[in-house]
């Protein structure tokens, strides 16, 4: 396969993790401008694990996701009782603090005769695990999609259980959910922890596929794009955010038709889409219609 296509596919896959992370919180009724922070935490942690501590990639990715999840839990303790723009601003504030912290974070050590590690504003270069272990770009792209499929499968399963219904119920009307005896804070905390882990996993992959990560890789633009992906793709299914990523990166960034005008097109598209379909292309109504149609066909066929 063409290396350019592989790169684009890998990018779509990696950004999808952040989009799914924002989507999980959107389902719980919270708008986060700060999921990029957990992406960054995952990227730095996983990178440090393979480069500085010589961990295997699997352990490093798990560690990155865990670290991001723990951070999300701590931030959640302070912010989850906020709602609306208060929550959005608090998460943005945290993400910016983390980004600046990364600009100040220097942790250099000599590994195999070469000094390496996070170097403040210059970022963290030479995360060469895939290269050193002869994993081709195609193979690493497969790893991204295998993990993405696993996250998606987990989300689909959760959506079919009581937990998924609780999540949407809390997102729809937290007060009503509370009155019905649902522990709103616990549901939100569960959402925040898993959203953090998903973003952290994406970050760990990003660091290793790109071979570097810098503070600018997780600025506010990444966070708000991730949020927009769910909102244009649709909040009815976990495939919605992926559709959003596909439209933006697959269609606008990678084809050269819109070069130099990508943001003008994407921005206008999002604004108009939000007017026509406030909960995205694949919203709850669309999903239940598709389900009905599938069921009918199955009945007709069988």
């Amino acid at each position, binding site marked *: 396969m063409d290396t350019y296509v592989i790169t684009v596919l890998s990018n779509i896959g990696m950004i999808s993790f952040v989009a799914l992370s924002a989507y999980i919180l959107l389902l719980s009724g919270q708008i986060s401008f700060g999921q990029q922070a957990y992406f960054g935490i995952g990227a730095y942690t996983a990178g440090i694990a393979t480069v500085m501590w010589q961990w295997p990639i699997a352990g490093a990715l798990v560690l990155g996701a865990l670290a991001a999840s723990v951070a999300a839990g701590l931030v959640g303790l302070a912010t989850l009782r906020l709602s609306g723009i208060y929550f959005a601003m608090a998460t943005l504030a945290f993400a910016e603090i983390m980004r600046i912290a990364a600009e100040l974070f220097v942790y250099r050590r000599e590994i195999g005769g070469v000094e390496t590690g996070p170097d403040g504003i210059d970022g963290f270069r030479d995360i060469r695990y895939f290269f050193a272990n002869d994993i081709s770009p195609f193979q690493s792209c497969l790893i991204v999609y295998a993990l993405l499929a696993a996250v998606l499968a987990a989300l689909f399963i959760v959506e079919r259980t009581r937990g998924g219904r609780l999540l949407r119920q809390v997102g729809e009307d937290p007060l009503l959910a509370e009155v019905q005896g649902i522990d709103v804070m616990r549901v939100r905390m569960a959402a925040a922890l898993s959203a953090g882990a998903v973003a952290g996993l994406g970050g760990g992959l990003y660091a290793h596929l790109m071979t570097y990560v810098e503070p600018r890789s997780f600025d506010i633009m990444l966070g708000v794009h991730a949020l927009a992906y769910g909102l244009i793709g649709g909040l009815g299914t976990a495939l919605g955010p992926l559709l959003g990523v596909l439209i933006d990166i697959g269609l606008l960034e990678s084809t050269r038709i819109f070069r130099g005008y990508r943001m003008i097109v994407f921005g206008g598209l999002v604004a108009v889409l*939000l007017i026509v379909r406030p909960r995205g292309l694949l919203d709850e109504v669309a999903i239940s219609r598709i389900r009905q149609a599938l069921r009918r066909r199955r009945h007709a066929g069988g």
Partner: protein
Amino acid sequence: MAAVDLAQNTLDGLMIGSSYALLAIGFTLIFGVMRRLNLAYGPTIMAGVYLGTAAFISFGAPSLVVLAIVIIGASLVGLYVERLCFRPFGEAARTASMVASFALWMQIEEAAMHMLPQHMNPFPPLLAASPLEIGPLMLRADHLIMLAATLLLAGAVTYLLARTKLGLAIRAVIDQPRAAAIVGIHVERIMMLTFVLASAIGGFAGFLIAATDAQVTAMMGMWATTKGLVAMMLGGLGSVKGAIAGGLLLGVLEAHAQWFLGPQVRDMVAWGLLFVILAFWPGGLMGAKALDRTMAVGRRV
């Protein structure tokens, strides 16, 4: 010496803070009337400033003409944002407005970069006079103008809201949009007017800021949105007084943080303060401890 540094930093902070306060007043107006966040506010201002700069570069337009272009340009872009991000959505779809305004932010920023492709563009400075010296302290004259303009504008906005018929209508829409419509107030028109007014104030602020820097980049959009937002949140959403207090406090705090800890920590301090206030003291500085803050917002504007 330390006392002089402290005083000088505080003074500098107050001056920079007055530009934050101007931005926060515009944000507050929009938030008060719409109960929604306009993330494209900073980029709207930047677009106006860019139009002014383009006129300055191409025709050497004098400062007053540039000022007019900036204010009119920002108002028109504001109108566009209102039409596309706020008018189509009901108050219930707050998220949609916020995300749509972010989408337009991207659009405006790219359009501005097509207009003036250079990263840094010159802007006509306000005054070339050397700084005033008051004992051991230094004071830039254009900073003084900025502070005076902020106080004047805050007074004008307060007067407009408290004493004029338009202000009465705005406050009615803030308090009870439905009741306001019943008594014959054209709610949509009031919202649009407020939006354009806020954008014009933003344009004025943008002109002063760009003139003090004597240059402008497309990053001004993001800068203005974040500084204005933080200042507004620090002051507690929705009061003009709070916006000024928040802006000045942010300015002073940043000046000290920069002096003692460096520019990166300066930004971190501002965000850290915002985080702490939101998490532990969500009403803001001037905020009431009311349970229903959104209700309180309206009453305080």
